[in-house]
């Protein structure tokens, strides 16, 4: 019998989910898990209703509210914004009517859809996972094929549990060696996007590999995969290993006992075969990655914290030069300014990129015994109610509150300027989220993307600082 061609992690998951291949090469791909939230689903459920269709696999579907909701106490007394309330009530009506499992706003497991999937043990290796949300790529950290879809496709998955998809190309990003002191998963992914650009992954699924990726905990791996979409990739993924399996063992809804052992046997077959072919490969040396800060209005406009604001006049390409000028104007920056001289008005630690317990521990380690600088609004928004509970059990909320941070309820919060948490025009933020687009955190807001440690240090100093100089060494123990 001929040797089977070596396959990548992506190839293996893809092959295992093709229901049928249509004559033009399009695959009917089976979807194992469909996560849903209040913003991109109302029209999809409407479509089902109009056609008299049902949700094919409610047991493979999970709904939660995260985008639109307030992250303060007001959520307990009812949502005040009428449009947000209607979207949430609509989701609640739909999940009841169609029998979809739902985590309500006041449930302690409520949280950002991309935090709760892995945390609850619903997102597992080898799965195909979709959600009407581009940051579905996060779940690729579990060793799954996970990607965002549009509203018609949401309806398609609800009705058929499948999607019509053309295969993607394989790309591997190898991050070799060890991360230096004070550097994190966020710095890895920002450095990767800085290197390959916001369209660098177009048409590809990225597999992240190498020692520095292997060394990351699950939270770090989710941070990396989360921002794959910011590199233009269809999805990002990391091969499952002992770190993954240990994580799943501790989840409430992951397979247990014999089912776990059976699953484990299949999960162990998933990593890319030696000699598997990637259409494209990129290598980074982990020890060369410094703490990163974005200076512009897309995640590719990023520099090490030791850098200075670039000068558009030094950019030879006319179109790029014009774009840089626009970015500097919007961001209120002058060429040559040191990034460490930029004062911040708001510090936001949260979002599906960086709101897990590990992120909050990293922030608390920096601020312990210190105070938020005068005039800075600093907030920590846990990614889920369970993260919040864990942080409180560890006393992290006390450390953060005593330093002057707001300690809030779980949700997307200031990541996207759709709920009450917004930047005001002209305000500069150090944010652990994933998009620094114009107006993303509120009209006129100026976002700088950083790691949780960098954000926490900026809150204390009142301006960006190199966390490597700032971090007490013992905090890393």
């Amino acid at each position, binding site marked *: 019998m001929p040797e089977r061609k070596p396959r990548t992690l992506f190839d293996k998951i893809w092959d295992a989910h093709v*229901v*049928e291949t249509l004559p*033009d090469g399009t695959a*009917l791909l*089976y979807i*194992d898990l469909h996560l849903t939230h209040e913003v991109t689903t*109302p*029209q999809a459920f*409407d*479509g089902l209703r109009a*056609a008299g*269709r049902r949700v094919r696999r409610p*047991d*493979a579907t999970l709904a939660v509210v995260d985008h639109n909701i307030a992250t303060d106490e007001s959520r307990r007394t009812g949502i005040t914004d009428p*449009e947000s309330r*209607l*979207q949430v009530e*609509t989701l609640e009506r739909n999940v009841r009517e169609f029998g979809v499992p739902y985590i309500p706003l006041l449930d302690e497991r409520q949280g950002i859809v991309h935090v709760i999937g892995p945390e609850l043990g619903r997102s*597992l290796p080898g*799965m195909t996972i979709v959600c009407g949300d581009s940051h579905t790529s996060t779940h690729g950290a579990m060793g799954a094929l996970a990607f965002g879809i*549009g*509203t*018609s496709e949401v*309806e*398609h998955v609800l*009705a*058929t*549990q*499948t999607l*019509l998809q053309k295969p993607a190309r394989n790309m591997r990003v190898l991050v070799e060696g060890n991360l230096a002191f004070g550097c994190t998963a966020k710095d890895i992914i920002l450095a990767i996007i800085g290197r390959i650009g916001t369209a660098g992954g177009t048409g590809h699924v990225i597999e992240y590999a190498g020692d520095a990726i292997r060394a990351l905990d699950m939270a770090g791996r989710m941070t990396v995969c989360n921002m794959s979409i910011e590199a233009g990739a269809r999805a990002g993924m990391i091969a499952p290993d002992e770190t993954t399996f240990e994580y799943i063992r501790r989840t409430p809804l992951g*397979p247990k006992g014999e*089912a*776990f052992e*059976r*699953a484990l046997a*299949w999960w162990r077959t998933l990593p890319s075969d030696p000699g598997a072919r990637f259409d494209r490969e990129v290598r980074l040396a982990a020890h060369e990655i410094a703490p990163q800060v974005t200076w512009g209005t897309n995640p590719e406009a990023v520099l090490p914290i030791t850098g200075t604001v670039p000068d558009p006049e030094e950019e030879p390409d006319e179109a790029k030069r014009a774009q840089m000028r626009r970015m500097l104007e919007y961001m209120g920056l002058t060429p040559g300014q040191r990034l460490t001289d930029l004062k911040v008005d708001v510090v936001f630690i949260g979002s599906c990129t960086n709101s897990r317990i590990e992120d909050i521990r990293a922030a608390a380690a920096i601020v312990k015994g210190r105070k938020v600088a005068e005039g800075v609004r600093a907030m920590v928004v846990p990614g889920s109610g369970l993260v919040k509970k864990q942080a409180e059990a560890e006393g992290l909320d006390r450390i953060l509150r005593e330093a002057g941070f707001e300690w809030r309820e779980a949700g997307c919060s200031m990541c996207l300027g759709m709920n009450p948490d917004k930047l005001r025009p002209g305000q500069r933020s150090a944010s652990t989220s994933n998009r620094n687009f114009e107006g993303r955190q509120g009209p006129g807001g100026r976002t700088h993307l950083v790691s949780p440690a960098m954000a926490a240090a900026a809150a204390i100093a009142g301006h960006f600082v190199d966390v490597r100089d700032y971090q007490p060494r013992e905090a890393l123990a």
Partner: protein
Amino acid sequence: MKPFTTLTGIAAPLPRANVDTDQIIPARFLKAITRAGFGRHLFANFRYREDGSENPDFVLNQEPYRRAEILIAFENFGCGSSREHAPWALLDFGIRCVIAPSFADIFHNNCFKNGILPVKLPREVCERLMEDARMGGNARLTVDLERQVVVRPNGEEIPFEVDPLRRHLLLNGLDDIGQTLQHAAAIDAFEAKQRAAQPWLYA
């Protein structure tokens, strides 16, 4: 999805190129929770003045074009954002066919998903059809998908091309979902196999 076989109706002339989806429906109207009702906001920036009153100069505010079912425009119709709200708005207004020399890719796909037929015809043909449309209520066009022809008021027939699979879906009123459900047996078989091999994926 409503099948599209033959449509005879009033055609509205919109002699513009690069009509983008932001023009078709501005972003501020995307907060609604249903697919219905976007017709009110179709071309909102053209149709309404700042005080909210109708702009009588815009074609869709004029008789008989308020009842238009066909829209004729120029190159690159539907460019810009991928919002599916654009075809939703056209459909809700009553437009089921757009005729133009070229379409933006995503919009073109989205039309088929929503029972709208985009017809590609050369610029000079579109100009002639636009003349027909300007004749008003007596100048109905017929778009016959079965025979793949547009019939002018003078009886002249203009053939057009359309992807055979998509034509099949439209003629039969099958959306992607309807199409996929024809593979229901294969999906059932896949699930049976997967359930046996990976029971932890099933509740």
